[in-house]
């Protein structure tokens, strides 16, 4: 027998004593998230590199979803970086050894929502395993370049922190493959390195651009004297600034590239007071400005990619707001066409296959595209589920739908389950722009409220996607309304008719946004210094509502009292009203007393559904350079606060969610992970249940009917943990037991709620469905490696109907029984697989018993099966008739199998003896008998079929035809199906008669003939094998 396990198994086993079991994500075992994606809109892509040698191995870095690798040019991907930082700034593959891959974390597209990295990583096995190699506090990395002649020399451009000054920025160099780093170009605490290039013909020649930039919560600046263009001739030891022909400083961000086939040729986009495109043909010593369209020079802080074909120095690419290409070295540009479909705007990553320069990959705000014609037309890669959701909500449909809005990808709805799995085509776009909150109307299943940036809200007919603008307008002498980039639209938790929107004032509508009432004064600090967004952007004006400030950011109505409403602002105010908005109480000083800095964004508020005075809130202070996790609870309407603390916490906090049934079960989403506590916040653990360790969690909701936990991630789409009931019920008493079999709620006998979808999908991301049959659940304190685990099901009479191999993982295990028995034994032999052997009848409702066997121990619970009282098309009587008919056919299969086995055994005996008998008459007798038996056998099962496409049907296959139809569906048998059963039974009876007749005719004579030659005639023993 096999083998490979022999080495490690010898030796004594440590005896383990588990006095107290610590609850963490492994406690919940199989309670794993489904990744809904979708891939249809994908998400922001920040880095792409490919293996030049094969042209099909592609690494894709994302803004919030880690690194994904394809080994087939983009047909499918797998995530490689799920234990590490999800924000990727740069990827580089060693050109000499493609197994070596570097990843720089923290993207450098410095938008308002950009995430933060934690340094450099290196893999030596093509991405399977990674090691952190330093530059931990750079926060943002824009480019990695490897010396093509010396793999140990690596350059890393680090713009550095966005929200604070610091020295952890500049151009870094390693000469030992990333083990140690030296900062070789540094300007000041405000300016880092934005871009770097190496002359492939002379790797001592290095070009780099530096960049001065800063964000505040209410403004952005790109530009300053720290920005510049530099060149080194000695591998970075000394530098000189390049200025000849470039515009007057100050500069902002400079994107540049050189032509690999003619490295003295450079092109650069220099942000300045007169941002332009510049070309040099003498290694940057002199530059000439070229005319350029708006796309070429647009938004330099966000579009920093420019490239030249590795073989053709005249072919220049500028992926930016749109995709432009030039055939004349950058003198003129054309735009990609839409013949292959729309190419998403806003591009940040680009790779040209150096061995086939027709083949390009571009990364956009909406996923990866590839081109096979040098960028003229593009094909969308549909299998990357890296959407950046801001929020998620669910409706009450069965199966329920999720709703959410995404960075630069509008607002969408999709089902939590769908026939054949949830493919891209199951999703529907319902609103444009950047998407944020999408609220299905709990009182009207056809309506949802959605928005684009800056509070542009609409009431959407979900079926038609027709919309009505519902944004509250400023009236009279009010201040101009201030809407956050991500303005809240919230329906009432107590009164489902209430709809809230917040600018600096809180608005409420009770008629789906047709009419609004302002129910507050300005609830923000109204600090005028923070309201000068017209001046935002720096050298390039950039005022897109992304920096709007002194606005309401979160709204929550108490689930217990519609007059109790909480709001949080982006400038630190946390206020509540207990009288439906007549009066307001600001509690911001109170949370500050608990150690939470003032002025933080109040990122979420969660009034308890168990106690009116209890409220939870999260606070996000990262825009002041503070990444700590702030989550707190008040039990006295905000007068005093308790700050939760845990060594597990990482990342600034976005969302706190209280469970609907268990007040001690809380979930926390941060920029770097999903956390839970089952003891009211005393102990927290990271949820790693098929969830990336540092996933960016922006929102969390719980579907009340299914008890599913739905997580909006900012880079991995929607994730659903089905049925969190075990998290509610797992007591200390249970987790201390070695094995615990949970009680079963009565189950409806069903073959599932959905069909298979008819036809396989042709590609794209496909998420698995929620289980449509509730699993039997059990808890194992430790993984069971010695001894078998099996689940046995006994019917009401005590008869074993099914045995299912158990899973053995530590924590919660889930086993689904499909309510079917074991399939029949079908006749063996013949030339095709008979699918009757795979179909088993469903059992009838009744009181069953489940027995969990773990090693030599048994654990038993009852399981009540009921007929679906709502299903009028399949009544209990229908089910009973279906079951009876299925069992008749089941038994017919087993009887036929016995007959065929008997024939086969006899034939085996005859074959063996034909060779041995010497008497020619005896030999003929045996041969005649063998032939007659084969004639009979060939009527009982397919024996001649030579191809899977040449279908041969004999009695076995005929039984299967009707058996599979009757037993495989949920419907009573038809009249003709019932008649067919009788007919097949008669056919079998005739066959059996023939066999008996042949036995009587031949057996005595054969016995005599064999006895004469001293040969045994018995054919007992193990059944004959077909081969």
């Amino acid at each position: 027998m096999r083998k490979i396990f022999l080495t490690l198994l010898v030796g004594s086993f440590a005896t383990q004593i588990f006095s107290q079991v610590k609850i963490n994500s492994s406690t919940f075992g199989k309670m794993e998230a489904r990744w809904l994606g979708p891939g249809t809109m994908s998400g922001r892509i920040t880095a792409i590199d490919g293996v030049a040698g094969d042209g099909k191995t592609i690494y894709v870095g994302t803004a919030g979803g880690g690194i994904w690798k394809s080994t087939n040019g983009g047909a499918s991907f797998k995530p490689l970086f799920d234990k590490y930082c999800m924000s990727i700034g740069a990827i580089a593959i060693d050109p000499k050894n493609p197994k070596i891959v570097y990843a720089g974390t923290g993207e450098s597209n410095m938008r308002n929502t950009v995430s933060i990295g934690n340094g450099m990583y290196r893999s030596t096995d093509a991405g399977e395993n990674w090691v952190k190699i330093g530059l931990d506090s750079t926060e943002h990395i824009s480019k990695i370049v490897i010396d093509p002649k010396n793999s140990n020399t690596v350059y890393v451009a680090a713009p550095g922190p966005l929200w604070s000054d610091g020295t952890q920025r500049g151009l870094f160099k390693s000469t030992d493959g990333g083990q140690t780093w030296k900062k070789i170009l540094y300007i000041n605490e405000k300016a880092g390195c934005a871009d770097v290039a190496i002359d492939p013909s002379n790797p001592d020649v290095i070009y780099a651009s530096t960049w001065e930039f800063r964000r505040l919560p209410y403004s952005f600046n790109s530009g300053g004297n720290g920005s510049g263009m530099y060149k080194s001739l000695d591998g970075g030891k000394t530098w000189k600034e390049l200025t000849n022909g470039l515009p007057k400083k100050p500069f902002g961000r400079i994107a540049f590239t050189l032509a690999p086939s003619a490295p003295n040729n450079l092109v650069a986009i220099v942000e300045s007071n007169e941002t332009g495109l510049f070309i040099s043909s003498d290694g940057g010593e002199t530059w000439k400005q070229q005319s350029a369209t708006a796309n070429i020079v647009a938004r330099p802080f966000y579009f920093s990619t420019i490239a030249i074909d590795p073989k053709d120095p005249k072919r220049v690419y500028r992926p930016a707001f749109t995709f432009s290409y030039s055939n004349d070295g950058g003198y003129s540009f054309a735009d990609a066409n839409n013949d292959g479909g729309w190419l998403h705007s806003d591009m940040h990553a680009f790779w040209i296959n150096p061995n086939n320069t027709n083949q390009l990959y571009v990364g956009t705000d909406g996923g990866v595209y590839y081109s096979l014609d040098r960028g003229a037309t593009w094909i969308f890669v549909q299998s990357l589920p890296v959407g950046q959701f801001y929020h998620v909500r669910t409706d009450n449909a069965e199966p329920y739908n999720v709703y959410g809005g995404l960075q630069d990808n509008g607002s969408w709805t999709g089902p939590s389950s769908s026939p054949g799995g949830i493919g891209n085509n199951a999703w529907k776009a319902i609103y444009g722009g950047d998407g944020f909150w999408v609220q299905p109307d709990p009182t009207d299943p056809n309506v949802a409220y959605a928005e684009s940036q800056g509070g542009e809200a609409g009431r959407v007919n979900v079926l038609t996607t027709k919309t009505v603008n519902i944004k509250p307008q400023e009236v009279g002498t009010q201040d101009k309304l201030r809407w956050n980039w991500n303005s809240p639209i919230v329906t009432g938790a107590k009164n489902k008719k209430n709809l809230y929107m917040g600018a600096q004032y809180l608005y409420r509508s009770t008629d789906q946004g047709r009419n609004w009432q302002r129910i507050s004064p300005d609830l923000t600090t109204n600090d005028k210094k923070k309201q000068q967004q017209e001046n935002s952007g720096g050298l390039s004006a950039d005022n897109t509502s992304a920096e709007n400030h002194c606005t309401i950011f979160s709204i929550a109505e108490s689930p217990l009292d519609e007059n109790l409403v909480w709001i949080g602002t982006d400038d630190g105010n946390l206020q509540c009203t207990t009288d439906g908005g007549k009066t307001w109480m600001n509690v911001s000083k109170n949370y500050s007393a608990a150690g939470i800095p003032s002025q933080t964004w109040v990122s979420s508020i969660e009034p308890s559904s168990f106690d009116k005075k209890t409220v939870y809130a999260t606070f996000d202070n990262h825009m002041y350079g503070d990444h700590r996790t702030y989550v707190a609870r008040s039990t006295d309407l905000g007068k005093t606060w308790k700050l939760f603390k845990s060594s597990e916490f990482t990342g600034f906090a976005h969302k706190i969610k209280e469970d609907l049934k268990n007040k001690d079960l809380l979930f926390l989403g941060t920029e770097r992970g999903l956390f839970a506590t089952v003891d009211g916040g005393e102990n927290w653990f990271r949820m790693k249940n098929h969830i990336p360790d540092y996933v960016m969690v922006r929102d969390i909701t719980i579907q009340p009917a299914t008890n599913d936990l739905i997580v909006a991630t900012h880079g991995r789409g929607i994730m659903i943990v089905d049925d969190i009931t075990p998290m509610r019920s797992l007591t200390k008493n249970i987790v201390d037991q070695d094995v615990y079999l949970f009680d079963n709620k009565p189950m409806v006998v069903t073959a599932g709620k959905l069909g298979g979808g008819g036809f396989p999908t042709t590609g794209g991301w496909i998420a698995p469905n929620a289980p449509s049959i509730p699993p039997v659940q059990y808890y194992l304190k430790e993984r069971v490696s010695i001894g078998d685990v099996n689940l046995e099901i006994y019917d009401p009479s005590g008869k074993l109907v099914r045995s299912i191999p158990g899973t053995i993982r530590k924590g919660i295990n889930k086993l689904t029984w499909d309510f079917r028995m074991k399939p029949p034994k079908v006749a063996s032999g013949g030339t095709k697989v008979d699918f009757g052997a795979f179909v088993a009848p469903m059992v009838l409702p009744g009181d069953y018993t489940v027995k969990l066997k773990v090693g030599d121990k048994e654990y038993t619970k009852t399981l009540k099966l009921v007929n679906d009282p709502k299903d009028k098309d399949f009544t209990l009587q229908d089910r009973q008739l279906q079951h009876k008919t299925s069992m008749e056919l089941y038994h017919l299969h087993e009887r036929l199998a016995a007959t065929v086995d008997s024939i086969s055994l006899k034939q085996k005996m005859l074959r063996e003896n034909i060779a041995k008998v010497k008497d020619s008459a005896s030999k003929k007798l045996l041969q005649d008998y063998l032939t007659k038996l084969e004639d009979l056998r060939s009527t009982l099962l397919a024996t001649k079929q030579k191809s899977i496409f040449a279908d041969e049907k004999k009695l076995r296959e005929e039984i299967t035809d009707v058996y599979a139809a009757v037993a495989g569906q949920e419907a009573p048998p038809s009249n003709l199906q019932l008649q067919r059963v009788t007919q097949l039974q008669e056919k079998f009876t005739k066959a059996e008669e023939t066999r008996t007749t042949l036995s009587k005719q031949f057996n005595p004579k054969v016995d005599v003939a064999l006895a004469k030659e001293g040969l045994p005639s018995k054919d007992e023993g193990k059944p004959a094998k077909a081969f």
Partner: protein
Amino acid sequence: MFNGTEVNVESITAHDKGSRQTITFGGLSGYTIYTPSAGYNFYPWQGHLKPEAITPEELKENEDNMDAQGPLIDYKEKGHTIEYVGMDDFEGTDCYKIKLTEKSGKIITYYIDPSNYFIIHSVTITKANGQENESKTDYSNYQKLPEGIWLPMNIGGGNTVKIKKVEINVPVDDSVFKPSTN
């Protein structure tokens, strides 16, 4: 098991001479045979009418199938290399992770439970017809054979193979490594 249907598997390995895995289900039998010089697949349920020869590349990749000891024993002498790549989680158990690179280029990453040193999971990357493939296998229900060797009696990779009986050092007729259709 397939929809509750039992699939019978008989596996024979003669160290460095050959291996044969015979699979019987739905009334049909097929097999995979590896020997140092040739290999065959015969899967009638996939429409095979006769044994299909395995490509030399695939044969080389799978030569460890004939290693009855498993590639970890005397790995150096066999030309393989091993690297410890740290701790990693498998189904809630924090495991030692060991990467074995075989002489053939096949890479197997083993997950070893530190509490008992059992291999509980492996990931194998093979190359067939120029394309890399990844397969994952779980090991459980370890039992100690009379010979003193611990073996996992359940081996899963989607479906679970439950080993009923293991015989060691029994004579093997070379004919089992020859392809046939009857």
